[in-house]
């Protein structure tokens, strides 16, 4: 919460003055422990760490000299909890409560670095001391995310001290609304929510639409599983989004805005709420913003747990208090949107780019990126990847670079198989296409799409048929049910895929999936249905052999599809430690101590508990081999081609 009272900003000079004062108070040399307190690190238990620091500093009488800064998510989620000791910029990762006294003693008091808490370069093994040198950060271009580790998202003063709201004042006092729209157009900014629609064009449509009541909306209903860029931005730097919206409202002539946050992001809801209140009390929202005469206010709304509400027309229905049913958009929502009025809906990241364009100027913004895709994009890199987290790169960077250089490649040295971009609406990209660049048009040509930025990396232990089935199961849950092709077509596609995964696939199933896919693409009402076939069609396109193995050979090459696999203990590797027998919920594992154990396949429910726990990699998954091996037979290599997957 903002420490000081109502410092109402009434002019650019007020803001400049306030910024100077705040910067003065911030004492660049003052020690600061910047700890990520985003949702991810929260799940790591970082609250206890923060409390421990407070307690330790209190104990040592240092509480007034050292700042403990709970920041938003800087994106290196794999290594959380994260701590950057400033001003040196020493970067510690995976810190725990027990490390706290040592950090205070060694680093804060004596200025010494604790080696075991440093990040080690994955390739060289060398420890990296400074945050700026960590390859994960260094190889990114963090135009949007750079502030996330530097401010407390609940304090507007931090944002202002770092230069926040200067773009707004510049826009209000030195630019005409039409000028701002032109700037956004020329910048080449395209929507970051998934569709990549040219934002400037949308702004122009809204600006020129009939009616004097217009709305600007922030779509924070980030529903793609595996994507959390918007969460990080909204949680970690809500003012950046707010500033973008106020500028947009000024440019388009809107007096009322909404931020629609999905229900599953409680911290984002809280933080944007605090930001709105703080902005209001500083005169940056409400009547007569910053003394310019422009009036605009924002209301926060929560979703109810429906992925389809990320679709713009469904979102607007939800804002009106209706069920999230999309409607035809032959008449754009920029003409008739929320309550049939001109509405500009943009994604969180899109709004966050706006202050950048205003401050840098559109020419500088357009220098970054490719011909068709300007600026940077934040991706959430998840799945089978060393460095799970948020990666911000200029458009035009190769996938290979993101996954291997920044992401650190696949854990345990396993081979890369595919990366899914665009979530359930996107497609998979195989190894052969890793030199594709992240660019809206390039990815579409390859049968996928940029989507909101989710990038799910998969190794050889991911079954692509099961993946397609997973996405369809997701979409079936989330389909609103209004139109026939989506409601019936997705359910039937899922049936076919489930059959295939169950070993009951038939000749003609692949063609049937493609037929259903064509109907979904051409005949669905909204983007959820229209893109529902993408995961299926792209996996068929690049991994047809896996489909055929399931259908013709009743075999799952990745060892995933339960009805097609069996768990087996290799007697040559099993030491008889009995560690696997205990967690088995069906008591299917038998064997004497120090003797090879066996799994009774009739009892085994393939829960994987034994597989997870075996330290000797003796539990194997086999597919396509028959009959089941008897104890004492062979060591994993059967006569029938099979994949022995090691634990």
């Amino acid at each position: 919460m903002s420490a000081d009272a109502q410092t109402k900003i009434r002019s650019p000079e007020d803001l400049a003055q306030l910024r100077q004062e705040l910067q003065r108070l911030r004492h660049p040399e003052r020690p600061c422990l910047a700890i990520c307190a985003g949702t991810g690190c929260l799940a790591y238990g970082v609250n206890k760490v923060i409390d421990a620091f407070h307690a330790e500093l209190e104990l040592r009488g240092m509480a007034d000299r050292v700042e403990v800064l709970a920041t938003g998510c800087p994106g290196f989620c794999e290594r959380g909890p994260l701590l950057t000791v400033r001003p040196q910029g020493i970067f510690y990762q995976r810190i725990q409560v027990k490390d706290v006294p040592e950090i205070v003693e060694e680093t804060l008091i004596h200025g010494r670095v604790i080696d075991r808490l440093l990040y080690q370069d994955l390739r060289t093994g060398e420890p990296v001391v400074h945050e700026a040198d960590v390859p994960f950060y260094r190889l990114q271009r963090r135009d949007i995310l750079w502030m996330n580790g530097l401010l407390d998202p609940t304090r507007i003063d931090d944002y202002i001290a770092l230069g926040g709201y200067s773009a707004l004042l510049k826009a209000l006092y030195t630019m005409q609304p039409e000028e701002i729209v032109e700037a956004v157009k020329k910048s080449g900014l395209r929507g970051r929510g998934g569709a990549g629609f040219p934002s400037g064009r949308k702004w122009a449509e809204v600006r020129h639409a009939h009616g004097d009541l217009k709305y600007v909306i922030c779509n924070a209903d980030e529903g793609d599983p595996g994507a959390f860029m918007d969460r990080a931005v909204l949680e970690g730097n809500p003012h950046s989004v707010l500033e973008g919206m106020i500028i947009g409202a000024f440019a388009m002539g809107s007096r009322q805005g909404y931020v629609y946050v999905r229900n599953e992001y409680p911290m984002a809801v809280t933080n944007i709420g605090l930001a709105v209140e703080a902005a209001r009390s500083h005169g940056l929202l409400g009547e007569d913003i910053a003394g310019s005469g422009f009036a605009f206010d924002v209301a926060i709304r929560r979703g109810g747990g429906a992925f389809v509400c990320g679709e713009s027309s469904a979102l607007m229905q939800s804002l009106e208090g209706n069920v999230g049913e999309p409607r035809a958009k032959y008449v754009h929502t920029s003409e008739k949107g929320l309550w049939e009025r001109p509405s500009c809906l943009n994604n969180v990241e899109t709004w966050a780019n706006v202050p950048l364009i205003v401050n840098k100027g559109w020419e500088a913004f357009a220098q970054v990126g490719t011909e068709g895709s300007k600026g940077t994009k934040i991706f959430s890199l998840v799945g089978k990847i060393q460095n799970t987290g948020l990666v911000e790169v200029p458009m035009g960077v190769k996938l290979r670079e993101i996954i291997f250089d920044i992401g650190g490649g696949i854990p345990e040295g396993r081979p890369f198989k595919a990366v899914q971009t665009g979530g359930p609406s996107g497609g998979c990209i195989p190894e052969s296409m890793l030199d594709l660049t992240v660019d809206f048009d390039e990815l579409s040509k390859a049968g996928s799409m940029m989507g909101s930025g989710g990038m799910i990396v998969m190794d050889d232990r991911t079954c692509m048929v099961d993946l397609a089935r997973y996405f369809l199961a997701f979409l079936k849950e989330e389909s609103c049910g209004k139109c026939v092709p989506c409601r019936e077509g997705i359910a039937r596609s899922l049936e076919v895929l489930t059959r295939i995964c169950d070993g009951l696939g038939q000749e003609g199933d692949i063609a049937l999936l493609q037929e259903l896919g064509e109907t979904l693409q051409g005949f669905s009402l909204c983007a959820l249905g229209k893109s529902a076939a993408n995961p299926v069609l792209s996996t068929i396109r690049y991994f047809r052999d896996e489909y055929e193995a399931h259908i013709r050979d009743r075999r799952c090459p990745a060892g995933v599809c339960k009805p097609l696999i069996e768990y087996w203990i290799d007697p040559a590797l099993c030491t008889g430690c009995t560690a696997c027998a205990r967690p088995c919920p069906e008591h299917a594992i038998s064997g004497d101590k120090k003797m090879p154990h066996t799994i009774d396949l009739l009892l085994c429910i393939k829960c994987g508990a034994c597989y997870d726990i075996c330290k000797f990699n003796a539990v194997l998954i086999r597919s396509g081999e028959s009959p089941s091996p008897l104890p004492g037979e062979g060591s994993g290599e059967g006569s029938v081609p099979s994949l022995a997957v090691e634990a």
Partner: protein
Amino acid sequence: MMEPSAVDRILERHGRDPANIIAILQDIQAEVNWLPEEDLRYVCRQLDVPFSKMMSLASFYRAFSLKPRGKHIVQVCLGTACHVRGAERIADTIARELGIHAEGGTDAALQFTLETVNCLGACALGPILVIDGEYHGGMTSAKATRLLAQVKKAGDNGHDDNGG
């Protein structure tokens, strides 16, 4: 069922505006852990919303429960990242432990409700479990079982926050 005055407070908080119906329902559910029919009817009468529309809303949005929920809300993330790390197995395990359907539901004693969620945005820590608003990462079937046992033993955890 809530006292009418308590419902009125919630309605006032949201300007008695039917457009805010989702927020109103969320607040009611936050207080009584589900959406009782009588409270929904009361809201409809107060805001002049047809009861059939209320039924559509309450049954469309997954956040809402038209049946009483358990004292402890257990949410399993089934997002893609968690999925590839075996989240479904954990959901199955928990369902078995609690005697509930794997797709979600409440046990007979109204102690636990299992809900599946599609991505909580903490993908680095998958598989994720949220129990009574507290996040737990890096889950395995075994860890989940231990966690549930702890919750059961602790009785009322004192955490009523159903956020997330």
